[in-house]
């Protein structure tokens, strides 16, 4: 019996030569990632359970990336980073991306691929639900809690229930110019619901996905958790290998789903038929088309996060914002310092992207998670009142970006930028149509 990519990775990392959905297996962990929110309690449990002087199972495999509550005066948040700093020094960890140092990166889910930790065929656990982003590289990657992280720190292993796999195929050979991966995943989450993939893998494939960049693929896998998915995967191809090879010398072994693998269900989407999508407050599956919501009044636009703060997200936003005056308070937060640097060097019609945003009056933040998840009250871009915001982030639960009174619409960088220009929800085809026809 054939196996899916996910089943194959779990089998390769366990005592079994083959696994089936529903069974629990203990797997060897290739990479454990933690950050400033969940790192300190994970370290606390590790030290309590394995002893104050215990060493982590393999310091080459533990990656610590502070990113959530970084640029804040909050003393408790700052203490969290101090705890990571002390632990990394004590354990002599080679992969600690300290705040305030040249190593500081920003959002962990984008920093991991940039630093070469998202390798096909491997197992990555992280103390953050969006760890599933790394599935874009054909890696088994999923979020865990502090106790599980502490267990891995001591043993290098964790039990996993093998998930069933749902397959999503994209037909079409290229992305229409007004469409982004964010539209595709909002459509899918809207179709299957916020618990539509609970306990399952979401595997993306088809000719459409071959046409997508690694950044597009990361946007898809990032949000599988918003459908309850355990992990999301894309089969590795030449693009994957090229991206990873550029960033690591470490050996890895890509695996692929067998032709006779068993799937829980199959879905097919034609890129040509898809349109810009929006998730209305207060759930990522509360779908509507941007066109249906046109004219909805807004107070703020936000472009950032692990889902919507990559270079291609800002390139898209700049296409629409360039030369326009903005009617909304617009916040720009690059996911990582590497992306922030590229905003300075990458140009559109000869102008650096960062200059386009500055000229339009955008507020520009430092690389970090910032207001994606609220955070301390002084967090950059946080919604502290009953504002209505359109955002490229991945969650719009009540209070997610700060105030319980706020309302958040989720959309692609194109749609957010188009809305920032008009002050109301706007289908980006208004701005991009001429390139389509």
């Amino acid at each position: 019996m054939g196996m899916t990519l996910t089943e194959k990775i779990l089998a390769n990392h366990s005592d079994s030569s083959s696994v089936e959905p529903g069974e629990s297996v203990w797997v060897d962990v290739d990479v454990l990632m933690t950050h400033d929110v969940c790192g300190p309690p994970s370290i606390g449990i590790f030290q309590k359970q394995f002893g104050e002087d215990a060493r982590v199972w393999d310091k080459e495999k533990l990656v610590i990336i502070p990113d959530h509550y970084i640029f804040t005066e909050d003393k408790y948040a700052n203490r969290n980073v101090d705890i990571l700093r002390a632990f990394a020094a004590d354990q002599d960890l080679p992969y600690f991306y300290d705040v305030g140092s040249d190593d500081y990166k920003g959002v962990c889910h984008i920093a991991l691929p940039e630093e070469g930790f998202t390798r096909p065929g491997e197992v990555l656990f992280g103390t953050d639900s969006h760890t599933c982003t790394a599935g874009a590289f054909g890696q088994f990657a999923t979020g865990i809690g502090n106790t599980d992280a502490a267990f891995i720190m001591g043993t290098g292993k964790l039990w996993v229930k093998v998930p069933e796999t749902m397959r999503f195929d994209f037909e079409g050979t290229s992305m229409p110019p007004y469409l982004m991966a964010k539209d595709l995943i909002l459509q899918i989450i809207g179709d299957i619901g916020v618990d539509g993939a609970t306990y399952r893998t979401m595997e993306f494939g088809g000719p459409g996905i071959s046409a997508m960049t690694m950044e597009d693929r990361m946007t898809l896998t990032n949000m599988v958790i918003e459908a309850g998915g355990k992990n999301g995967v894309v089969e590795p191809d030449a693009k994957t290998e090229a991206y990873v090879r550029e960033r690591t010398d470490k050996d890895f072994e890509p695996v692929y789903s067998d032709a006779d693998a068993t799937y829980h269900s199959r879905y097919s989407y034609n890129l040509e038929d898809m349109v810009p999508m929006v998730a209305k407050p207060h759930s990522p599956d509360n779908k509507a088309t941007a066109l249906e919501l046109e004219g909805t009044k807004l107070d703020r636009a936000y472009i950032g996060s692990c889902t919507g703060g990559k270079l291609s997200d800002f390139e898209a936003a700049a296409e629409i914002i360039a030369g326009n005056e903005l009617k909304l308070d617009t916040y720009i937060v690059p996911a990582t310092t590497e992306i922030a640097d590229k905003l300075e060097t990458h140009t559109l019609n000869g102008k650096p992207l960062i200059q386009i945003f500055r000229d339009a009056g955008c507020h520009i933040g430092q690389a970090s998670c910032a207001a994606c998840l609220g955070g301390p009250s002084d967090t950059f871009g946080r919604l502290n009142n009953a504002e209505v915001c359109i955002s490229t982030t991945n969650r719009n639960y009540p209070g997610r970006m700060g105030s319980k009174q706020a309302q958040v619409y989720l959309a692609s960088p194109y749609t957010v930028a188009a809305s920032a220009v008009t002050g109301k929800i706007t289908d980006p085809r208004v701005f991009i149509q001429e390139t389509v026809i």
Partner: protein
Amino acid sequence: MSNEQQIEGKAFVLGKNIDTDQIIPAEHLVYSLDDPEERKFYGRYALSGVPDAESGLPEGNTPLVEEDKFESEYSIIVGGPNFGCGSSREHAPASLDIAGIQAIIAPTFARIFYRNSVDGGFVVPYESLEDLSSKVSTGDTLRIDPQNRSVHNITQDETYEIRPLGSVADIVQAGGIFEFARKEGMIPCQ
């Protein structure tokens, strides 16, 4: 298979898709779980992100933990489908535990929340066969009887079915993944 304990207490009822930001808003995740004084704040703010009208159904406007208190008078949460969706923050089941919650009954749970509840030994997540959030009222006294896979609503004299814990029962009974692993000889006893 199971010798899990019966749990009896007052129910606190919530709707569907209760996410981890509602269970413990991200701004409160800065307190130390190891410091006894700071730890109490996780109890105080447990479920503080739930919109007021949906907190303590059917009437709503009922906080899990009264203002200025750190523990709740309720010990069992009854929720709708997809309980615990969202973040991987283990602070979510921990905060419910710190507030005094022993068990959650919901038709379905989000995967990471379920796993954190079990592996950390915080609260026992029981899956109900039907959505009980419209049958049970906040304040009803419930008795969970895992042996008989049932929940008795003592206030309304009704009985509902729950699923067995299945493969995680051993971890629940051990009190968490570390206790389980020591029992199994995977890691040395302290």
